[in-house]
């Protein structure tokens, strides 16, 4: 089951990377980076999963599980899930900054083509 997750993460990463490397439209580049970001989250969440584990909520055992199995730590790793929560928060901030820069570029240059916006080179 979990193999599907890894394959999906790899596919998302590949699509995102392809977009970043080949699309010149800046909004599409931001979208590509967002896809790559989603791929890293999926990868992390999949790393956190252990066979047969439950969500790391330790209030009551879920249906079909006893408190015994919680005490033996058969839950998904909460630290990696916390990684993702932190990264999601940072990612939202970065995307907001990204899009505001793109909007200002569009206002100044009247284009979204990153190939038209390269005064700085060499």
């Amino acid at each position, binding site marked *: 089951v979990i193999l599907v997750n890894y394959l999906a993460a790899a596919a998302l990463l590949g699509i995102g990377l392809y977009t970043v490397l080949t699309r010149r439209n800046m909004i599409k580049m931001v979208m590509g980076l967002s896809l790559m970001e989603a791929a890293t989250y999926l990868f992390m969440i999949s790393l*956190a999963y252990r066979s047969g584990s439950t969500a790391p909520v330790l209030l009551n055992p879920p249906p079909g599980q006893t408190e015994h199995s919680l005490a033996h730590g058969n839950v998904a790793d909460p630290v990696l899930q916390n990684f993702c929560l932190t990264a999601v928060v*940072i990612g939202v901030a*970065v995307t907001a900054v990204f899009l505001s820069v793109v909007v200002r570029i569009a206002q100044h240059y009247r284009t979204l083509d990153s190939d038209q916006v390269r005064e700085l080179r060499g």
Partner: protein
Amino acid sequence: MTIAALSSLLPLPVAIPLAGAVTAPLLARASSRLAVIVSLLAMAGSAAILLIEAPEVFGQDRVIAQYLGHWRPVNGHVLGVTFAADPFGLLVALAAAVIGAILLLYTLSELGGLGRRELGGYACLFQLLIAAVIGAALTADLFNLFVWFEVAALSSYGLAGFFLERPIALEAAFKVLVLTTLASFSVFVGAGLEYARHGALSFAQLHDALAGHTSATDAIALGLLIAGFATKAGLAPFHGWLADVHTAAPGPVNALFSALMDALGVVAIVRLVFQVYPAGSTPVLGVLMTLGLASALLGAVMALAQDDLKRLLAYDTISQVGIVVVGLATGNAAGLAGGIYHLINHAAFKALLFLAAGAIVHRTGLTRLSEMGGLARRMPVTAAAFVLGAASIAGLPPFNGYVSLSLIHEGLQHSHETVPYLLTLASQAITVAALGRAAWLAFFRPRQEDLDMPERLRPGMIAAFAGLGALCVAFGAAGPVVLRRLMAPAAASLLHPARYASAVLAGTGRLPALSVPFNYGSPAELISVAAGTAVAALLCWGYLRISEPRAIRLLRAAHTGSANDYAAYAIAGTLAVIAVLSLA
């Protein structure tokens, strides 16, 4: 003071600038200057606390740890984030706080007239970035390091696009966003892989877990982490953003990026390579040597060809960070001490050079070397500051570059790395030629028509020049003392990772004393400096007379200015680093 008291003070050097960053925009509502003055005080406070820690850490070679939230380790398992002041981290943190304060003083003078919103936001982002550098220098936790990386990244986006009315600032901000975001994925996945494999984030625990066996997963994680942090450090081929950002930003922001933000990347790489991963388990020193030499040469050659003064200095930053990494990659005591020494020196002299370039823009509005000329007569103080900075980079005694470069050369000779040694000398000669060309074109070349200079050099700007210039001279003239008291303990903390790890787990610990011999008047080194300067002078004279050689034209053409291309270079570099580390 007792160790416990010193330990409890350890979060403050980060907490004070963070608090200052929050209050600055609020204070700016009352007065824009007040925001910068309070930021300056916050930096001074942060530096003062670090200075209180210094006698124990440097004098006794001690590592002091603080468990944030009092989550003490249980049975060797670290439960929370740990801050640990070892000589290396404290040195970088101290440099960040002191140079940050000097840059804020300069800002107060040059940009003090800006609007309230602008200056409030500026003071906020400036302090966030310095807090991130100090935090990254003091942390002993991999995920916390990622967080400081992101804090530095977010504030650098804001500062890069600070002059929103200048389109090139937006262009530069877009490029740094693309490359740093890619780097952050790399760091994030690298840290996650290490945690998933070893169940630990603390450097100490990871060190112990990795000591037995370094698997392919560990090597891939190391490759991802190095690639990510190399982007922040501006090493080739991850450097696409660096020159553009520096071209568009105001002088103090250039100085902040070049002097301190690059240091964050270097510090992170050093911690991982020397204090987390066991020596010799991966060919990582070879990778670092290659990245360092590539950056040193590419940066120097590109600097020689630039017409924009800030852009020239930015490419020189790539070159100097490359030299720092070359020194560290030798892995021996002299090379490590020299690399750390050069990192601190670079912070001082590159800040000085960028502030001089900023002062030229402030007074004349000129950014291109071809439009400048004869400025030495009209701006003697700025010219003196620039020449002092250039002489420091050139490694002329008695300035600071001489000591650090001598140590790096000694480290390279000690491990019989002849080709890297020669390449380092070559890149150094090209760097000196590039700076000599800049000094000639800007300051000393005769000029016919007179310049209109409505602005004058303000006292705070002169004070900043004096402070940074004094640092350059002091770290050069007192070289042996600085080496013995500061740099040798810092190198010891990298050469004895097991001691660092046990200190982080135990709360405190001592490092073995290390003595790095250094002969100030070594004839071989003095001859090499003289020969290098002579070659550089010839190169500079020759380059001013010829049209651009084909090789340099091709190299410049590879810097296409397109974010797609730079991302492709960075991805190719990442894959190459991972491939070498995991397959070799």
